[in-house]
């Protein structure tokens, strides 16, 4: 990887509200905006349930793990949540390489990353550090 390279995107064609239920259970998250469309509306968040922030960043981390060659090669991520993602949205996780340097565990790749809602806003932006992908045999 070189500075300026784009990371291969991860596309989620339609954010699934059923998976929000799974995450709500895993998190023991009592916030009903992820489960009840009416509750999202009551908070002025539209008429569809709102994807949990951890799922949004998880899409980006999945994109990063794929680029680096494994989940164990993602060394750091930092995200700022900018806009909501709703059930049914199409989202694209992407990133670009900003630095390549020698770290403690080998070559490390710094990246800018984001998650965009197609036809909508940037949902999150941030930075990440990866171990460089292992050489292909």
């Amino acid at each position, binding site marked *: 990887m070189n500075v300026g390279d784009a990371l291969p995107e991860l596309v989620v064609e339609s954010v699934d509200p059923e998976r929000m239920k799974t995450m709500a259970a895993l*998190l*023991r998250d009592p916030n009903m905006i992820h489960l009840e469309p009416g509750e999202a509306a009551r908070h002025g968040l539209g008429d569809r349930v709102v994807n949990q922030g951890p799922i949004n960043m998880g899409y980006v981390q999945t994109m990063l793990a794929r680029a680096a060659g494994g*989940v164990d090669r993602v*060394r750091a991520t930092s995200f700022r949540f900018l806009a909501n993602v709703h059930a049914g949205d199409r989202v694209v996780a992407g990133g670009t390489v900003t630095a390549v340097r020698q770290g403690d565990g080998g070559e490390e790749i710094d990246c800018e990353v984001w998650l965009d809602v197609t036809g909508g806003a940037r949902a999150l932006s941030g930075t990440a550090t990866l171990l460089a992908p292992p050489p292909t045999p």
Partner: protein
Amino acid sequence: MITEDELSALVGRRLPGGRARIEPYVDWLTRDVVGAPQRAPGEDAVHPAVAFLVAQGNVGLELEEVFALFGARSQDGPMLGEWSVDFTRPLRTGVDYDVTCEVAGVARKRGARTGVFDLATVEIGLDGPDRARHATVRPTYVFPRRS
């Protein structure tokens, strides 16, 4: 509404923390939710998003109690503003982690459209059986204040 002084006094407050072991099904479900392939046989490193679950779920308080610490309730619409993780080594299934948590910073803000809101960052450490820090997680919550 919690006062600014009361909010500032929370910095340095330690939450009870706990002990966590990542069950394989938690990693499986997380990967399913975030569109990642499942672990190959023999692999034990978990998806990075699992760090959120392990950290959040083992601070020693329910999420509603964390909100209450900052004078908020889930009905008030608290949000996750920022979140970061630094791994010194990957988290793995079948490993016991000691979880520590401390309020790292707070700030009261005023927005033209949003009105008053508070930011609260907690730092959550995940230490392995070797007593070394394996991961540090820092969520920042946004608490809208409607006085």
